């Protein structure tokens, strides 16, 4: 994922400007300088044609992309906009010193090191440490990995063995999501391996342009997960899943031997929701649950035919009512750590989402992404925002 790899793809932009229809930052800012088309044109001018300097304003425009991938998913010319932005950010930070690089350094270390993930909690809120204020997530005092055994055995007749890769959001913020998944799986007859020597999927650091660090993290994950003897590898976070399935092959050279392992592993990776949809093939007599609406995280394939698989699953296993939002695929504005640095833009993006949630009249909001979950809850403290697996677990246990 070097900018040079995108010499041809960047030219595929047909300039149609259809990215206006889906870019959340554009919708909040209402001016075309925040659009994918313009960012691609600027990157072309600065780094390929070299007709413009990498000015502060240029860096700002590239920096304010939320990396939600809405435009990339929507683009009929199939320009990998998010990857081009990430590799441009790598160019921008090359040789950059000062506060921003120190911040990045701390962050990378925190996500990279297993131990540091825990140090982060003990030291209090990591984000607050970085001076990012009261809107930062609160971390749990006992992370998921300390709550669960390395292998949780099937409680029913064994149907198979799965591994579960838990993301940082689940581990540090919402361990109950991981516990719910492990409990459902074991009670459905699966041995669940929880490999604790994995690390972060790398998305928080790649977003900053630290591609080499993300690759290092991913390499470790792939090595660990490839060795496991299991039928499937499950993930419940849409962003982790995107990193493994879509970005990991691009983090390494084409002739890197890791590519073979990536291909083999990706054939085994399945989303938690997708997997449970194969476990619960028929409607079961679940408990009555509150009515729900569903927010599709951006890093899921949010324009695909399968985008409402959560609704399908929840409707099968609980007695509840789905109250659709008008545009379930609208971004919530969080974008990982984006909202910490771009508070106004993120809030502007979030407000129509909150309106839609309220208009749906649902009692609970479901979403898979821990950051969406945090940021939506932050914007509507009286509303229950849950991971769908947690919701299912509560109404089936």
């Amino acid at each position, binding site marked *: 994922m070097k900018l040079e790899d995108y010499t041809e793809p960047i030219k595929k932009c*047909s300039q*149609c400007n259809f990215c206006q229809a889906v870019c959340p930052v554009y919708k909040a800012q209402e001016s*075309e300088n925040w*659009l994918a088309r*313009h960012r691609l044109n600027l990157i072309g001018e600065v780094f390929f044609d070299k007709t413009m300097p990498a000015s502060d304003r*240029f860096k700002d425009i590239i920096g304010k992309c939320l990396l939600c991938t809405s435009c990339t998913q929507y683009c*009929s010319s199939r320009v990998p906009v998010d990857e081009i932005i990430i590799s441009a950010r790598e160019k921008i930070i090359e040789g950059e010193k000062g506060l921003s690089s120190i911040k990045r350094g701390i962050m990378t270390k925190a996500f990279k090191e297993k131990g540091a993930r825990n140090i982060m909690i003990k030291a209090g809120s990591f984000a607050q440490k970085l001076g990012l204020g009261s809107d930062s997530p609160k971390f749990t005092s006992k992370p998921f990995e300390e709550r669960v055994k390395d292998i949780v055995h099937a409680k029913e007749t064994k149907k198979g063995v799965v591994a579960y890769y838990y993301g940082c959001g689940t581990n540090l913020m919402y361990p109950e999501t991981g516990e719910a998944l492990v409990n459902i799986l074991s009670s459905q007859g699966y041995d669940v391996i929880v490999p604790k020597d994995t690390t972060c999927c790398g998305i928080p650091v790649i977003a900053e342009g630290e591609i080499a660090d993300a690759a290092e993290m991913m390499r470790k994950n792939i090595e660990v997960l490839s060795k496991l003897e299991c039928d499937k590898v499950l993930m419940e976070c849409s962003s982790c899943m995107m990193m493994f399935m879509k970005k990991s092959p691009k983090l390494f050279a084409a002739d890197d031997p890791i590519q073979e392992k990536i291909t083999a592993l990706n054939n085994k990776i399945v989303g938690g929701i997708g997997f449970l949809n194969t476990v619960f093939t028929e409607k079961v007599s679940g408990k009555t649950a509150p009515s729900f609406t569903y927010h599709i995280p951006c890093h899921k394939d949010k324009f695909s035919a399968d985008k409402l698989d959560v609704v399908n699953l929840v409707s099968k296993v609980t007695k509840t009512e789905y109250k659709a939002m008008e545009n379930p695929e609208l971004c919530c504005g969080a974008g990982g750590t984006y909202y910490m640095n771009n508070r106004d833009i993120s809030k502007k993006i979030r407000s129509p989402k909150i309106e839609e949630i309220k208009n749906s009249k649902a009692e609970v909001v479901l979403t898979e992404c821990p950051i969406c979950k945090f940021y939506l809850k932050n914007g509507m403290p009286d509303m229950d925002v849950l991971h769908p697996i947690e919701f299912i677990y509560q109404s089936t246990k």
Partner: protein
Amino acid sequence: MSSIGKDLRKILSSEQVLDLPEDVSAYANDATFYVAKKNPDAVVFPASTEEISSIIKYAASNKIPVVPRGAGSGLAGGCTPVHGGIVIDMKRINKIIEIDQKNLVAVVESGLVLEKFVKTVEGMKLFYPPDPQSAEVCTIGGNIATRAGGPRGVKYGTTERYVTGIEVVMPNGDVINPGGRFVKQSSGYDLTHLFTGSEGTLGVITKGILRLLPLPPAKKTIVVTCVSADQAAEIVSEIIARGAVPAVLEFLIKLAVMAINGYLTPPIPLTGEAYLLMEVDGNEAQVELESEEIKAVCNELGAVDIRIVTDKAECETYWYARSRLYPLMTTIFKRVITEDITVPRNKIPELVKAMQAISTSVGIGIGIAGHAGDGNMHPTILQSEVSEEVARKADKAIEEMIKVCLELQGTISGEHGIGIHKSSFLELEHGPKQVEIMKSIKRTLDPLGIMNPGKIWKENGGKA
């Protein structure tokens, strides 16, 4: 900060003005690569007609060019600043002011996105037919300014047929409101339609009063696989000759079908060289009758396959896929130029043959994927490489296409407008006398020449 930017910040809030080069270059082009880029000095984001009037008064007193802009998704360079100056981004003026069901009209602000408007009226069982294929981004103001249209042109015509009134900020800052909510008007010159299609050269359109129709209760999509482009063209002529009026009648070559197939389940089988994609609409009986008649024509003329789709959601996938065709083409080719020459409908077979001949003689690929039903064929120049030689060939092909189109008594633009892209050909179609009338209208309404200069006709052809 530019001096123009500084002045504009006295008229508007600073949040409504952009003048850094890294920002304003976003407004240097539209959806074309073939129009030279030129940055504006400033971009403004007015929130009201009054603010636009103040901006124009400032521009007039300083003789600064003004370019109104919708979504920047045009295909002719209509909204790009040839001489710098001020680009007015209209998209923040975007309210639906009223939907008047008793009179079947809507009053809207010009920055309103077409798709939002269409969804709103359809939710009320009303219908606004114009359907440029960029509906999710393009604005009503941009549609009015270019007389934009799309596949439904064959039955429903294009935007101008639905404009019954407008609000315009004139080049001196005055605000006028020609037209109204009536279905007919026989008083005085038709100023409403003088501004409709004027591409921002006569003033800034700030509101539109738009005619609505009742939403047809039934529709069907028909996909016809044809042996050849010639056969498809003959089928089109025959359907029209027999009096069947599909709401949409699209012509696609195999390559275009290959491109859109990714969006279709099941994909269209690639057993023919040309394809027709149709929609019939109306009441149930009418839809049934017309689809049977079309089927009969296709069978009589030996079409390979006829697929009739009735499921509403499935029908929509075809039209969504069709609307993606322009950006999809760049996944196959390095560059594409979509033309919109339009001929009388009985000339379609001749046009198709001529395009094939031009492709061979000039030595450049020309794809055809157009609104055959209304004669607007969208021959598309397909470039597998980027070089000066290929660019020259593309220019040559466009020139020849235009010649052929005019020989066939067609028009050089059916729905994109002239902008910069086809300004050198305007006189070929209209002749010097008509062009001089246009220029004299321009001189009368915009004596300082500040409104979107450099558009519609070549500047070296005489200053307006």
